[in-house]
């Protein structure tokens, strides 16, 4: 029995693959993207946070506790005792056998819509044995599976996990390695090499580009992405994911600084221009601003 740490199961998830899906978000990520939508997912261990807007100051916590968003020395019993739900655990240890039925609760919706389950994060491959096992179990249950990865992983690990997924959602952020290191904390070389390798062995890959104005949306980056993707087989679709400032408040919630605070959401027009640019670079697969 493998166990993993997840931080959320999102039902009625509509942007992580085809149809209506349930997405399980795994905890832990090797990247530190400045524009991260789920910064609470980055550290691998469960943590306890307090949402001050929900707190009723019932004095179960001390004044000193209340000052800090991330709370030390707490356990699930404290979370249970908090009347308002202000004290929350980010991260939950689960085993695959109990997680699978939870993920299958929306199965009639998957069947109707052509949806399924997406394993996302964080970075799922930080917990590769668990995720590979989970995908295998889901597939055995006859449900469509998708693996959403940043691609930063040893190739055999990625290959083996992806082999259990009907669809791979593969993020590409910046083609220039210096910029990539600056924005995410890691080199893009293994990522791009993995995508190249993946495109030769996996039949269904959707590449996803976060469009973060002022960070990833410049023409030179988009052109470089186009040039890189054009020769690759197996890329069925490209999605431009518009930056959303929803992550900004989450950074504060887990005691982190958001480095792209104030960045606007790209307009539909801007996304259309970028999509046209990729098409002009010779990409023929569907390009959407959302799946």
């Amino acid at each position, binding site marked *: 029995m493998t166990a993993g740490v997840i931080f959320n199961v*999102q039902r009625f998830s509509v942007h992580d693959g085809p149809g209506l899906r349930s997405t399980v978000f795994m905890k832990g990520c090797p990247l530190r993207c400045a524009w991260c939508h789920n910064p609470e997912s980055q550290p691998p261990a469960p943590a306890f946070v307090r949402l001050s807007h929900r707190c009723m100051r019932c004095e179960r916590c001390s004044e000193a506790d209340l000052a800090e968003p991330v709370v030390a020395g707490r356990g699930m019993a404290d979370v249970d005792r908090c009347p308002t739900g202000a004290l929350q655990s980010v991260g939950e240890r689960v085993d695959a056998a109990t997680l699978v039925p939870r993920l299958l609760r929306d199965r009639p919706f998957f069947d109707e819509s052509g949806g399924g389950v997406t394993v996302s994060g964080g970075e799922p491959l930080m917990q590769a044995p668990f995720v590979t096992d989970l995908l295998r179990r889901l597939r055995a249950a006859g449900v469509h599976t998708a693996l959403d990865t940043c691609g930063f992983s040893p190739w055999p690990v990625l290959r083996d996990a992806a082999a259990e997924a009907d669809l791979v959602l593969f993020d590409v952020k910046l083609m220039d390695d210096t910029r990539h290191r600056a924005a995410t904390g890691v080199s893009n070389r293994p990522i791009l090499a993995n995508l190249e390798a993946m495109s030769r062995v996996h039949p269904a890959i959707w590449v996803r580009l976060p469009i973060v104005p002022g960070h990833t949306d410049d023409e030179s980056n988009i052109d470089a992405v186009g040039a890189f993707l054009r020769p690759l087989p197996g890329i069925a679709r490209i999605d431009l994911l518009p930056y959303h400032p929803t992550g900004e408040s989450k950074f504060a919630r887990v005691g982190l600084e958001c480095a792209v605070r104030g960045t606007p959401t790209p307009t539909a027009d801007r996304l259309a221009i970028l999509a046209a640019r990729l098409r002009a670079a010779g990409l023929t697969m569907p390009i959407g601003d959302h799946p």
Partner: protein
Amino acid sequence: MTARTERLRRASLDAVPAISAERAVITTAFYTDHLGRHSTPVLRAMNFYAICDRKTLWMGDEELIVGERGPAPKAVPTYPELTCHSVEDLRILGARPKTNYAVDATVIETYARNVIPFWQGRSLRDQMFGELPQAWHDAYAAGCFTEFMEQRAPGHTVADGKLYRKGLLDFKADIARSEAALDVEHDPEALDKREQLRAMSIACDAVMRFAERHAELAEARAAALSHGPRKRELETIANVCRRVPAHAPRDFHEALQYYWFCHLAVITELNGWDAFSPGHLDQHLWPFYQRGLADGTLTHDTARELLECFFVKFNNHTAPPKVGVTAAESGTYTDFANINLAGLLRDGSDGSNDVTHLLLDIIDEMHLLQPSSNMQVSRKTPDAVLKHALRVIRNGYGFPSLFNADAVVEEQLRQGKTLEAPREGGCSGCVEVGAFGKEAYILTGYFNLPKMLELALHDGFDVRTGTYVGARTGDPAAFRTYDDLFAAFRAQVEHVIDIKIRGNQIIERLYATRMPHTFLSVITDDCITKGKDYNAGGARYNNTFIQAVGIGSITDSLAALKELAFDAPMLPLGRFVEILDADFTGEDALRQRLLNKTHKYGNDDDYADALMTQTFRMLFETIDGRPNTKGGAYRLEMLPTTCHVYFGDVCLASADGRGEGQPVSEGISPVQGADRNGPTAVLRSAAKMDHVKTGGTLLNMKFTPGLLQSDAGIDRLHSLVRTYFKLDGHHLQFNVVTADALREAQANPSAHRDLIVRVAGYSDYFCDLSAALQDEIIRRTEHQEF
């Protein structure tokens, strides 16, 4: 819209609802002269004839479909023989800030001088209240249930397709045959049947007289014009009114006018609940539409204009106002006429056609409060048809609502109907199922579920009215287990349902013997062959509904009590009750726990949902199959309309964290804001109820407009609907509006007079709703994308 229908629509929107005393005056005079000289059915039919013969006619300057119930659009007649407004009622109607009716001083004077003196003590409502037992009055005053028929007659029914194949002369021939076949020597009821059949025949004459007067009026108006298009239109109107309803319609225009005369006839003779409805209008009109296009007498555009004129007619017919209205029972101008789209044909095949799309386009363009519309979605309904409806829904007016046509058939088969009747039937009013043209399916009143638990926690005592209205189930502090608590809850439900049904039986017999609905009987199978009235069991099928309200609130309350007082006890039940009686004073932390940390229905949480299904089964066992007085049975429905606000108002604080007097949950929707796992979890929870055992359930959902903007958004909504229906869900309706937009309208009503929202089973102007109901709609969970 054409310029004509744009003007007709505007005139309808601008018309001010007003009370007309004309019908009351004609009826009072007629009764003064004729009471005691005829059998009851014949007296009723003759009174109806007198109204049709004498009432002021209205023919608007540009109208193509003619006829009004009152002397002018939105002039609403009254029905003093059923419920006689007092002078004070009339003053309140004229003065109340919301859903008010203009009441002329002469109306009040006429009422005071002529109408009230005659009807006081004679109206059916007065007789009813005299006959109902004290236990009924106590439970009613405590807010355990409401009673539909103390205000308006049984109605709740819908026309079927036979109207388009038979004229009233054909019906009269049927009546004559039925009368000729009476066997006085061997059938002890033959003489009663004869009176009933003669009354039906007079009712046909009344409606034909009404049409004839319209023909005469149109001819006179045409004669006054020397030439021009309106002269020709008036001549056409005259020809149509000479033809229908005496004869079956031959073309699209005649078909619409025929239905409209029947509609007016039903709602003029008595003010039955839910007015009357045309049923599967797209299916009924389809042969006329095809024929008209083929022979060149009709085009898409002329059909559309006629339909638009027809729609305006519904909007002109504001609901008759209730009597003794309290602020708590919010009013509505809507009279619940409802048009069905798509669905199934008699042979079980898909019933949608080009007229379905035409009607959807009209609904989308006209944005009228009335008529309501719904789509009966079968697994055979093409995706394109459902998606067209969803694109109309996306625009945020709550129309059309969606019903599961396949479940609707199954529900009615369970009641013992033959297969074709439910296929040709469907849903009307808010969500109730019936066999159109063949059934009296009567809603009798809402049932306050949270109140039953409150009674179980107080040994049957109603704290607010200071009366024992429930069963004596003992001190809750002595309940050892959750099962003890549930048994006490069950005992209260059984006790109060018994009281309710005792009252219902009395009321049914009063209508059967004293208030027949003679014209509705003509057009409802098998009243003519049985020689029996619609209100007396003449219809082929007779189901009587009790509508339970607050399943979300009751589930969450039971879940909290089960968990905190029994499973993981942290609070003795006796202490829990004290805290609720004190409305959580000084117990904020507990209340927060109840609001945030206990199991809630609507989250696909089996702990909570199991209690929902336990409660549902108990209700079903208590109600379903009990005999009514008409040869039919009682059925359970899960529908609130606006009653969840009133029921909350009469309840103490509840264990789900709800404060004293706050609204309870509506329909089978979760408690407002308690559903936190998104729309699929709501639908999964709701589908755990066995909808097939009901006569209708109502589920409200609210989506942000952003979710549905794109075609992909429509696809998602389509998947949600199809899946819920695959799981046997009965009904879904949507509000597509943000809470911010509603708050803005609440703060600034004059700028948002035309904002229409879905309430529960119908749409209404948001600014006409009570503040409590507005707040409740704002608090409903807004589903967005993830």
